[in-house]
């Protein structure tokens, strides 16, 4: 294990976090809050430790698979720990476990909160909470690779460990260029949404924080009632953008940059949009009569469906009050999640597609034992490794899920709350059902449960394996 290389990478990650904290600091100065100074001191801490770590310049800068996984997992742990400092120092969230939970929830774009009253928080703290969504959405390492002069193909190991989906590939030959393109698309879409929201009667602060939450598919609300209080136009804009940010970014690259329409990357996106349309239809039919008009009904259903499937977690309606059938569909959407290669979480549509196709294949083989079948996606045969990785991922996911539920059940809350609580954190959604539903929060859980859920969020964002590799004794054996 190349310890120096890992520490060196962490140094850059911390320096990067220091740069990120400049924005909330500026925000604090604009609103004349004393928290600006707290951010300044946190920047200093990150910079000093970051510099110290960077001074461990490694002799061998080749990043192997193992170092890639460990670096990414540790980067996310570190960025969450240091990102929690402003919450603790400012007294906004004095409990360390609470602050860690809130920060992890931010960076992993979960949006689950321990706070019951957001509106009393200083603006700069709210800004930092939302901005962490934006940073975590596309990924810390992806940005570092895009801007830092880290050379070599080994960086691809880190990008792979951080990116989502069953198989990660490059858009263009160079890792750096690929990272730049992804961030380019991300930034353009973010700015577009900010501008549109400004036209929807939002002030700049609201537009920025809301967009950060949407772009990263995070979902930290800036008001206690999440998104209920905003205008119809703002709600519709956010609905559309949530769904857009849940689509694989390479689709945008091929369609808008390369102008290739038959790219063969779109089958996942098509399925994803199909699921959204189908569930909106089902739920709005099931919820008929609950709202004043069909328009209201559709608007709320679309917002909730978009928010849940993309794992954003903004809400405009308390779906705890919806019929059981609708709630069951929402739970299914929570499990499915967004597209691979988007900023969304969950198991990912493409994995579900591969799993379903595997089932169909097994049935066909049962009928004709000697027949030959290969799984295909986008018209291409899937590598055996990809299918295997999906199956193993699913199993690991279930085991982690089960253990988390068992541990947090010790706190004595009802099953719906515990089950959807784990689902909402592991899949980076935010609100679940029951006590952790749209109107509730995670504040009532014990410190142990909060820690387990925090690790669940990290595991979910990094798609399990980086964290499993980090904590596996095999990795550290000499």
């Amino acid at each position: 294990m190349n310890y120096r290389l890992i520490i060196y990478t962490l140094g850059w990650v911390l320096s990067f976090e220091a740069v990120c904290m400049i924005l909330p600091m500026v925000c604090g100065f604009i609103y004349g809050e004393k928290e600006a100074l707290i951010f300044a001191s946190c920047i200093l801490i990150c910079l000093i430790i970051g510099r110290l770590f960077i001074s461990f310049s490694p002799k061998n800068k080749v990043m192997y698979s193992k170092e890639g996984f460990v670096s990414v997992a540790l980067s996310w742990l570190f960025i969450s720990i240091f990102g929690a400092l402003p919450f603790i120092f400012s007294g906004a969230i004095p409990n360390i476990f609470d602050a860690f939970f809130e920060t992890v929830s931010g960076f992993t774009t979960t949006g689950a909160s321990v706070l019951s009253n957001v509106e009393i928080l200083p603006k700069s703290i709210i800004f930092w909470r939302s901005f962490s969504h934006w940073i975590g959405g596309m990924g810390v390492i992806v940005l570092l690779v895009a801007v830092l002069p880290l050379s070599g193909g080994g960086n691809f190991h880190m990008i792979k460990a951080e990116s989502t989906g069953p198989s990660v590939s490059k858009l263009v030959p160079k890792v750096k260029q690929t990272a730049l393109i992804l961030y380019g698309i991300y930034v353009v879409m973010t700015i577009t949404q900010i501008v549109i929201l400004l036209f929807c009667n939002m002030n700049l602060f609201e537009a920025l924080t809301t967009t950060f939450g949407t772009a990263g598919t995070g979902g930290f609300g800036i008001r206690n009632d999440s998104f209920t209080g905003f205008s119809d136009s703002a709600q519709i804009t956010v609905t559309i953008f949530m769904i857009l940010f849940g689509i694989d970014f390479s689709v945008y690259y091929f369609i808008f940059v390369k102008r290739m329409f038959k790219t063969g990357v779109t089958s996942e996106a098509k399925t994803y949009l199909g699921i959204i349309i189908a569930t909106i239809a089902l739920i709005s039919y099931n919820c008929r009569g609950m709202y004043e008009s069909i328009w209201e009904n559709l608007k709320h259903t679309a917002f909730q469906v978009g928010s849940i499937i993309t794992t954003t977690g903004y809400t405009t309606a308390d779906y705890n009050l919806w019929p059981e059938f609708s709630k069951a569909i929402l739970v299914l959407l929570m499990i499915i999640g967004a597209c691979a290669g988007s900023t969304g979480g969950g198991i990912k549509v493409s994995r579900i597609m591969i799993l379903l196709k595997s089932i169909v294949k097994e049935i066909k083989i049962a009928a004709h034992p000697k027949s030959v079948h290969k799984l295909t996606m986008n018209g291409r045969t899937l590598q055996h490794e990809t299918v295997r990785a999906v199956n193993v991922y699913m199993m690991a996911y279930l085991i982690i899920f089960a253990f988390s539920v068992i541990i947090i059940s010790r706190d004595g809350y009802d099953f719906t709350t515990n089950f959807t609580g784990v689902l909402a954190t592991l899949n980076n959604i935010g609100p679940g059902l029951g006590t952790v539903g749209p109107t509730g929060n995670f504040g009532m859980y014990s410190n142990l449960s909060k820690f387990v859920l925090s690790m669940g969020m990290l595991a979910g964002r990094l798609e399990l394996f980086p964290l499993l590799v980090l904590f596996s004794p095999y990795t550290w054996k000499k």
Partner: protein
Amino acid sequence: MKIVIVGCGKVGQKIAESLSSENEHDITVIDLRSTVVNDVVNAYDVMGVVGNGASLDVLEQAGVKEADILIAVTGSDEINLLTCLIGRKTGGCKTIARVRKPEYNKEIELFKEDLGLAMVINPEQTAANEIARLLRFPSAIQIDTFAKGRVEILKFKICKDSVLCDMKLSDMGAKLKCDVLVCGVERGDDAFIPGGDFVLRAEDRLSIVASLEKCSEFFKKIGIKTNKVKDTIIVGGGEIGFYLAKQLIKTGVNVKIIEQDTARCEELFEVLPKATIINGDGTDNRLLMEEGLEQSESFVALTNIDEENILLSLFAKSKSKGKIITKINRITFDEVINSLNLDTTIQPKDITAEYIVRFVRATNNSFESNIETMHLILEGKAEALEFRIGDNSPISEKTLEELTLKDNIIIACINRNGQIITPRGKDMIKSGDTVIVVTTNRGYKDIEDILE
């Protein structure tokens, strides 16, 4: 530049490695085997496509339409040619194909133009050329040529009793009355670009720059034999052995080939009537001694087994004073091989990759920078670059004394319309010259880069 490499065997990987390390090319590799593609993508900054490189779909997916160069180095000649043909038709890129079957040797010339191939490379032929070159100048460990072959960088080892031992470089010109320039010294694992105060020691590996005639003169003065070898023993009558024997016979060298396979021996006898073909086991030391290993001026180990070649060469080294050349195909432990005292080793696949990389660079240079040739010297620790000096270059029309160069740089040679000048402080670089610069720094694209 945008480069597509079809075939990720050893040559393909080597090319991907060299070109991706230059950081200015967008490289896509294609191979049928997904595991190999994954390995390459993980190791180097390139994009991978799994599929048959000769299929249009796959090539388009790899972006052949925008590509500048297509390199086909799969194991099959036919696929390579087909790939290049398709690439040429769809993309209009320059194409390079590896074609190794000797049966196609004559045909290549026929179809090279028709298929629009920019370069056809035969690894065995290339390796044989390299060996033949070394045998013409047996004292050198490595020879690289510049200025269209007029200048050479030669590497050789200083023996214990050489006059060069303990000589200061600044005294060399006066003591030997000879105009060569030492551009690099390797001592153990270190490589230096020496200044005037540098003192040479025995066992140092010296790289010198000079024209052909000056090299011979220099070697005569320091008492090293410079004549080409008169005879050679080749163990292994494969393709390289055949090409090598053919070339050597042409220049009047007595060639003895030891080959185990009777049928192959008969084939060789038919195509090489002037060579002595011996049907026997090359690893049998009695046979080697019987065939005059001790008297032979050179020995080339070309069997298909690397380990066998190494052992054979070590044995030959212990018995003979001649030039020993060892072919190594797969083994990649350079440090270990260097420590074995094997004289010269030849890695055909590396040579193939190097030739292709050199071609890519030359193409790149023709529109992006003004490097004419580039060689890696001092075990890859330094680069020797040949720059063409344009009009109004900040370096021209000044004496070298007036220029402030960066550290670890030496201006090794000036070529003015074919006249080779070993540069001294009072010399001046003029526009139209080509200048050879040796440096351990990397990434120079223009002659201006050498200035402080």
